[in-house]
């Protein structure tokens, strides 16, 4: 039934507000967040596809009388209210997003005795706004939730116990206050030209050539919306601040942060692709910035010494793969990009939580001071190793499937250079991962390193187990997910 | 004619707000330029937005900034 669709956004928001109310007593916060986190993944499976019109404002075609005023103009398909469109792509991504959020909340509950209600509030608010961005078919809706996610991400970073978290949060907000209004001005220019905020209407107007798609205002709106997208996602020049944010949050917090960024990448990226793929050089801009993201972040990751910063840079570099998929713009490359986005969410969450266990034991994240952790927790060591293989694209796991599809689509489109660079960068990613893995687990233990003997909480090992099972299942049977993406993209192009 | 004066006051208020040494004056000038924008919204045929901007831009934002300055009682000495 269609009215389950908005529930996916309303339930996390209600849960967030309640959690904020019961901030003080610990047990209600734990129970409430646990129950809501379990219930959430079930909703996308039950809701069936279709669109949901808020306030009952169906498109004008359903109103017979009004049409007599404006016969056969574009107005007859005009969407008045906010519409949520729920297709197969949204179902898959939201289902996996809710599972990752459940696992992140489970790890937070497991690791900390005292859970603050506001931290859970921020996690649920970030989750709800990201789901709303994916569902909504309204470009101003994207801007509002873009701003809410900025504040939620800053809150999640501030909830960790890192020393320099305030400086990073401040820099992120300052750059956000430059990126956000530029996105709003871009939307303003688009609104001035088209007059409607609903993306399907804009695409309808642009496709039918009602506006000259090479007019300065239309192109300027592309430039500004593209700039806002660069900020929200962490492509250069924002990759340093974005990876800094990942490195300052708690391990489960940064696992959720990078999931938010990937989903924002997909929702705004699809909006840009649908509206602007008539212009010839949109693909070149996207490919240029994602290549820069891959090259710069891999070179920074290689020469860092704090492993949380290294995985932060790897996560930002992985977004380059998605960018290339969007930049090429064929049906196969878009499906491959969505599949790569889904895999990246799972793998990077596994790596953040996996390496977070070393932080839990040894309280330091400098790889030069660490070593020899393999003998007191071999299980997590092996799980993190499998995560690294998935990141690099080793065959049985899911990273391999999506990277092969991306390389295939690059070759089909006639860009062999992109295929070579993708292979080269994934080899160097594997080398970076092995460097961190060796210096944390395999290197002989330095004398001054004291490792607390408390065991890693069972919930963390359970989370990593579930993530690895997802990697393997998606690796062996990619068609589970790829057919859904294919059907969605088919409707788009 | 009146709208051009309002616009000039708004822009001058913004420039002066950033050039002030004493930050409290900067907060007040931000309020003035926020209020000018509220009147400008009314001239641009958007009465409800003018109301919100008057409350937020001319009252809430200066109070926030003044509170922050009071808490940090900083004077901008090197600018």
């Amino acid at each position, binding site marked *: 039934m269609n009215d389950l669709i908005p529930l996916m956004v309303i339930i996390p928001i209600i849960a967030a507000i309640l959690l904020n109310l019961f901030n003080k007593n610990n047990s209600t916060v734990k129970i409430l967040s646990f129950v809501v986190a379990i219930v959430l993944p079930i909703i996308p499976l039950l809701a069936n596809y279709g669109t949901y019109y808020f306030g009952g404002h169906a498109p004008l075609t359903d109103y017979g009388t009004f049409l007599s005023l404006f016969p056969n103009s574009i107005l007859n398909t005009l969407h008045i209210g906010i519409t949520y469109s729920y297709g197969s792509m949204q179902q898959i991504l939201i289902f996996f997003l809710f599972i990752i959020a459940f696992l992140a909340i489970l790890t937070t509950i497991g690791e900390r005795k005292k859970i603050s209600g506001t931290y859970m509030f921020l996690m649920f608010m970030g989750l709800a706004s990201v789901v709303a961005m994916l569902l909504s078919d309204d470009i*101003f809706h994207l801007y*509002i939730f873009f*701003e809410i996610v*900025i*504040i939620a991400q800053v809150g999640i970073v501030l909830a960790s116990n890192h020393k320099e978290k*305030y400086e990073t*949060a*401040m*820099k992120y*907000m*300052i750059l*956000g*206050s*430059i990126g*956000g*209004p*530029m996105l*709003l*001005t871009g939307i*303003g220019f688009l*609104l*001035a030209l088209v*007059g*409607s*905020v609903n993306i399907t209407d804009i695409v309808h107007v642009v496709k039918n050539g009602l506006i000259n798609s090479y007019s300065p205002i239309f192109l300027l709106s592309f430039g500004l919306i593209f700039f806002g997208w660069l900020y929200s996602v962490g492509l250069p020049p924002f990759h340093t601040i974005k990876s800094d944010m990942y490195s300052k949050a708690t391990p489960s917090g940064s696992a959720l942060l990078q999931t938010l960024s990937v989903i924002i990448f997909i929702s705004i990226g699809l909006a840009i692709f649908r509206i602007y793929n008539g212009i010839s050089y949109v693909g070149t801009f996207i490919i240029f910035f994602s290549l820069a993201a891959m090259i710069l972040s891999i070179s920074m990751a290689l020469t860092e010494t704090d492993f949380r910063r290294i995985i932060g840079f790897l996560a930002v570099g992985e977004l380059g793969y998605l960018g290339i998929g969007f930049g090429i713009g064929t049906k196969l490359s878009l499906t491959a990009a969505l599949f790569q986005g889904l895999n990246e969410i799972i793998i990077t969450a596994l790596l953040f939580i996996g390496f977070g266990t070393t932080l839990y034991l040894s309280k330091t994240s400098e790889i030069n001071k660490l070593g020899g952790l393999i003998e007191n927790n071999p299980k997590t060591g092996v799980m993190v190793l499998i995560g690294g293989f998935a990141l690099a694209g080793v065959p049985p796991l899911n990273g391999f499937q999506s990277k092969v599809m991306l390389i295939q689509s690059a070759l089909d489109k006639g860009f062999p250079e992109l295929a070579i660079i993708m292979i080269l960068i994934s080899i160097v990613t594997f080398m970076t991962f092995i460097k961190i893995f060796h210096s944390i687990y395999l290197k002989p233990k330095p004398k001054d390193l004291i490792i607390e003997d408390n065991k890693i909480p069972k919930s963390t090992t359970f989370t990593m187990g579930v993530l690895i099972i997802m990697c393997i299942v998606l690796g062996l049977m990619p068609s589970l997910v790829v057919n859904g993406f294919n059907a969605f993209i088919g409707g788009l192009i | 004619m009146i*709208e051009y004066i309002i*616009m000039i006051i*708004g*822009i001058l208020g*913004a420039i002066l*707000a*950033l050039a002030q040494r004493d*930050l409290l004056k*900067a907060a007040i000038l*931000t309020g003035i*330029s926020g209020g000018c*924008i509220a009147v*400008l*919204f009314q001239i*641009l*045929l*958007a*009465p*409800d*937005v003018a109301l*919100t*901007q008057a409350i*937020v*831009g001319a009252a809430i*934002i200066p109070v*926030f*900034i003044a509170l*922050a*300055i009071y*808490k*940090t009682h*900083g004077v*901008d000495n*090197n*600018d």
Partner: protein
Amino acid sequence: MINTQLAALLTSGSFIIIGLYAAIFLDNIIKKIIGLSFIEEGANLFLITLAYRADGIVPIFLSGMNPQWFAENSAYPLPQALVLTSIVIGASTLAVMLAIAMVLYKKHGSLSTDEILGDKNE
């Protein structure tokens, strides 16, 4: 004389430029935040100037009006509804930034960006 809409566009452009100038060159963190709030206000003003219609009427649909006449000379209500939320967003972002700035002041004892956000390991 230039008409109201063009003048309002110029004011919103100058607000954005003043804000960008402050975000780049000013060293005091409170002034940087004030500059950033000017950028937000400039973007809102830009949206409202798009909705303006020279010598039109305020977009309130009274019962007796004929919809055809109303649609032809009322200002466009959609951006005005959007700006309502975006003013509040600007204020809340400013509030969060000021809160972080206060904590940074308590930690570093100074308001200048070089000392607070400066790069230690360089």
